[in-house]
Every structure is written in structure tokens, then in C-alpha cells.
């Protein structure tokens, strides 16, 4: 099978001196990126790494991207770790992986050693200076994994989504053409690198020869400066979560400054309020806009829909049609094909499984509903959808307690499990207030709200910590003993 890195060989041959990635301080041209990845790969292989997980704990930078690609060059798969993840989550990830190698930088070395004392810690700057080959490898093993990213799991144990290199190749062959990426695009990356969201920009750069800037996080508390930064660098393509776009328009940034060069906007992962979408359309009338939809378990995005003209406020924006090669099924509660039901995705983008977790893998992957004998597995998203009159997929909601909060996938059960692990918490229930984008936690027990706020900060990523924590004398129950969420909804929100 051709390797994912062959794209970088091709683009670096064509555009050796063009800027590929920049974090504002450091930039790597295509030839520098290829050189760094080749050297890091050679260093890892020289250390004995082979088809195994390599943890990457580095600052969000152009170098971190080179480190990920270097791991692929070594025939291994990368697992992004991040200083922003709470310690307990990092510990769980490292326990699940038990990596022999960690790539890190000087700033994170002490943290990496504390996290995983048994592993060999390779400093990026040294690995990137190791004498490697001039070109990256062109071939990969058919079943090679490319990365494992961890997502929220309802029991509190994060799930390691394992993605094959063949799935990444499929993504590279579909997304860039579906949304019209080309060499003229200059991306502004909003997302952290420890999820899969930034793969869109990676493909725009590696496959099509675009350029991408890692936008500094702090700019998002200063939207006028954010847009000025974007304008100064002539950034013309933004693939952001809808809440990041909304944040800019809700703060009335466009009265002060508008993006001057924008040609392409892609949003996904959550609903974009029509009012905010309209504000962007007005501010950037020349931008082509796409709604994307997909799942981490299916290598990012699998569906796309061009958003053209004014949108009706009462009608959801469709998530559209699948990429070529992606199969869509809607299954009703009996598991039969239906017009409305759970969205099931099939095709080459489906994950290999949850890392070393056969039980949860078996619950998520099912035989192809249209061809159960084929041996192909499809992913049950847990999302409910239907097809509209144009054959476009419409997202309706979730069948469980998973929510999208600030662009992140969050299992309310994981927050509840974390709360229940704290001293003095007897019962806990999390509610999502969608219209205010707020997570509320109600609990019983002698612990004070303050204890929960502090306790949960250590256990959960920032985007998962409740926005409101309230103690209650008791919580309503269903006859089967489960907490009655509907009753809480009525009592607390009058719904």
C-alpha cells in the first residue's frame, strides 16, 4: 500500500521552499518538514521502535507536527499527549498504552518523565538532528495504524480510537477534493493537536500544498486581534468548530474588523446557530462555506454540504452527502434499515477499534447492515438522523447522554463518574443546557460545591468541567432506581 507520507514527498519535491506550517515563532517549509520527519523516524527506528505506540508530549508547534509525521516514518503510530490534559486523564492514557517511547521537548521533559518513568524519552531537537534519509518511505504495511486519539468514555475510562493508515489515505483522497482545497489556501488552525480535528488542515497542506498557521490560543479571548492576526497573514481558509466561529461573531467583532481574505470556511462537529452563520456570510460574502459531519471513529469528517445563500432559521443545516466510498445507513431501534434512525457509517474510514478494548469495540462496530457476510465493519455513531427530500443527511440528535460542548465530544456519564469518585458525593447527575451551552451538575452528599469544582479540575479536561455545580437534598428516581433525568429537567428548568 502507498504510504501517507508519500504525499509529503510529492509536495516537497514540487514546493520545497514554500512554508508548510508555522506556529508564529517557528515555521517549517515543505523540505524542512520532510527532513525533520525523516530524521525523527530514523532516530526512532535506531532506538528500536517498531509498529508500536509512540507518545508525543510537546508544545503545540510546527515541530509537534513534524514529530507526528516522524512517528509514521518509523512505521509506528503516534498518540498525542498534551500538557493541557489533566494529570489523571494522562495517567489513564499512558496506562492503556504502556508506550516504550515518548517524544518530547525540553519544556515537557520533566512532565513526560514523571508521567511515564519506564519509557525512553527522546528529545525532539535531538531526534530531528539524527541523520535520516532524504526521502520519506513510499510504502506502508496494509494494516498499519497511524494514530490513537482518546475521547470521552461514559464510564470515565477514555477510549483510544485507533485509526489505520489506510483510513488516513482515504481521508486524503476524499476531503480535499470534496471541499476544494488547493495550493492557494492559507489555513488558520484553531483546534488543539491532541484531537483529530486538525487533520483537515494537515491534508490541505500535505496533499494540496497549502500553508497552515497554528493560531495562538490566547487570541480567542481577543477576537479583534484574532481577525487582525488572520488578516496580517492573509489567512483565507478556516476549518473551525462552530462554537469558535460563533464566539467571534457573537462578540460583534465584525463591527470593528472583518476577515479580508477568506475564501473557504468549514465548520462541523456541532450545530452552527443560523444567526451567527448569517453574520459570517455577511462579513465574508466571497467565502465558500461547508458544513461537515463525521466521527473520530471514522477518521474525522465523512459528510459535507455546501451552505449557499440565506438559511432558514427554523430549518437545520443538512450535514449533506457522504464522501465517495463512505456508506451511510440509518437503523431503527430493531436494527433494521429505516428512513430515520441511528447513523451508521461504513467504508475505509472506519476505525480499527478502541485500543486494547475489545468489549467497547464490539459495542461500537457492527457488520455491514446491507452485506453482513462481507466482513466489513461499520461504526454506530449514536447520532440520530434522517434523509431530506434531496437525499441529504439531517442530524436530529443523540440517542444517549453524549453531547457536543464547545466543539468537544463529551459523555455526561464521564463527568458523573468523576464526580462520584470524589469524597462526600453520593449521587451525581449532569445536565446539558443546550441553548446556553452550559453543563450543570447536581449532586447529593455532604461535599461542598467548591470541593467538586476543585476535585473535578484535576480529573477532567477544562471543557468537561461543569459550569454550575449545585447541591441537592435528594435527586428524583425512576422505579428502576435510575436517576430520573426528565424529572430533573422539569424541576430545574421547567421543561
Amino acid at each position, binding site marked *: 500500500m502507498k504510504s501517507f507520507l508519500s504525499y509529503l514527498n510529492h509536495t516537497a519535491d514540487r514546493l520545497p521552499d514554500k512554508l508548510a506550517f508555522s506556529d508564529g515563532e517557528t515555521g517549517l517549509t515543505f523540505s524542512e518538514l520532510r527532513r525533520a520527519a525523516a530524521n525523527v523516524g530514523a532516530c526512532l527506528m535506531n532506538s528500536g521502535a517498531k509498529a508500536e505506540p509512540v507518545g508525543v508530549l510537546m508544545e503545540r508547534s510546527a515541530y509537534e507536527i513534524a514529530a507526528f509525521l516522524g512517528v509514521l516514518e518509523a512505521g509506528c503510530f503516534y498518540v498525542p499527549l498534551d500538557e493541557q490534559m489533566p494529570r489523571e486523564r494522562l495517567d489513564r492514557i499512558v496506562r492503556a498504552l504502556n508506550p516504550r517511547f515518548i517524544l518530547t521537548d525540553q519544556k515537557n521533559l520533566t512532565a513526560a518523565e514523571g508521567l511515564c518513568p519506564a519509557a525512553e524519552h527522546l528529545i525532539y531537537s535531538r531526534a530531528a538532528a539524527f541523520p535520516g534519509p532524504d526521502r520519506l518511505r513510499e510504502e506502508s504495511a496494509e494494516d498499519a495504524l497511524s494514530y490513537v486519539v482518546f475521547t470521552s468514555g461514559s464510564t470515565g475510562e477514555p477510549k483510544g480510537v485507533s485509526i489505520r493508515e489506510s483510513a488516513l489515505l482515504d481521508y486524503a483522497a476524499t476531503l480535499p477534493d470534496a471541499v476544494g482545497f488547493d495550493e492557494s489556501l492559507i489555513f488558520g488552525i484553531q483546534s488543539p493537536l491532541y484531537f483529530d480535528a486538525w487533520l483537515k488542515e494537515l491534508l490541505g497542506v500535505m496533499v494540496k500544498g497549502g500553508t497552515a498557521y497554528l493560531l495562538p490560543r490566547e487570541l480567542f479571548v481577543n477576537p479583534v486581534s484574532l481577525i487582525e492576526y488572520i488578516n496580517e497573514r492573509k489567512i483565507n481558509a478556516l476549518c473551525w468548530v462552530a462554537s469558535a466561529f460563533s464566539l467571534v461573531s457573537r462578540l460583534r467583532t465584525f463591527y470593528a474588523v472583518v476577515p479580508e481574505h477568506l475564501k473557504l470556511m468549514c465548520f462541523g462537529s456541532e450545530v452552527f446557530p443560523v444567526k451567527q452563520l448569517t453574520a459570517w456570510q455577511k462579513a465574508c460574502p466571497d467565502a465558500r462555506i461547508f458544513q461537515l459531519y463525521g466521527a473520530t471513529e471514522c477518521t474525522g469528517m465523512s459528510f459535507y454540504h455546501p451552505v449557499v445563500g440565506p438559511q432558514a432559521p427554523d430549518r437545520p443545516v443538512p450535514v449533506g452527502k457522504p464522501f465517495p466510498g463512505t456508506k451511510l445507513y440509518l437503523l431503527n431501534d430493531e436494527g433494521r434499515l429505516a428512513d430515520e434512525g441511528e447513523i451508521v457509517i461504513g467504508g475505509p474510514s472506519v476505525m480499527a477499534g478502541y485500543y486494547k478494548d475489545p468489549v467497547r469495540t464490539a459495542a461500537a462496530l457492527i457488520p455491514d447492515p446491507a452485506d453482513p457476510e462481507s466482513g466489513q465493519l461499520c461504526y454506530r455513531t449514536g447520532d440520530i438522523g434522517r434523509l431530506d427530500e434531496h437525499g441529504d443527511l439531517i442530524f436530529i440528535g443523540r440517542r444517549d447522554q453524549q453531547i457536543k460542548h464547545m466543539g468537544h465530544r463529551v459523555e455526561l456519564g464521564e463527568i458523573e463518574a468523576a464526580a462520584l469518585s470524589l469524597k462526600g458525593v453520593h449521587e451525581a447527575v449532569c445536565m446539558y443546557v443546550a441553548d446556553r451551552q452550559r453543563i450543570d451538575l447536581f449532586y447529593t452528599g455532604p461535599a461542598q460545591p467548591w470541593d467538586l469544582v476543585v476535585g473535578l479540575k484535576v480529573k477532567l479536561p477544562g471543557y468537561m468541567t461543569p*459550569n454550575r455545580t449545585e447541591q441537592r437534598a435528594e435527586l428524583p428516581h425512576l422505579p428502576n432506581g435510575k436517576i430520573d433525568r426528565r424529572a430533573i429537567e422539569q424541576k430545574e428548568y421547567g421543561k
Partner: protein
Amino acid sequence: MTYEQLLEMLRDMHPDIDFDTAEGLIDRKVLTSFDVVSIAAELSETYGVELGAVDIVPENFNSARALFALIERIENE
């Protein structure tokens, strides 16, 4: 809007922080960009205080006092 009302609003969002004394809320990443949006929305919806885009800079959100000074400025305009 009074300073006490502002403190109460902020405490609702982050009960673990003593907003009366805390400094560098943005610089130390205590408040995120989404907190800033929530604060702006809450000020507008509940108190009718409309922050302009140019007001959304870290200096105005680094402490409750800085934010209250901004609110007073807007209310007196």
C-alpha cells in the same frame, strides 16, 4: 449593575475563584475564551450592558475590578 452583582455572576461560573482579589484571570488562563463569551452574553441578556468588540481585550477581563470599570464606562456613555 453593582460590583456585588458582577462578583455573584462570576462566582456562578467559577465558584472556586475569589474574584474580589484574583488578578491575571486571562493571563493565567483562569478564564477561557468561552468564559469571556458567556460573560459578554450574560451582561447583555441580564443587565443590558453591551460590550463592543474593541472592549474584548485581556486587560478588561484580567480582574473583576477591571471588568467593572469597563462596565461603568459603558453605562456612563
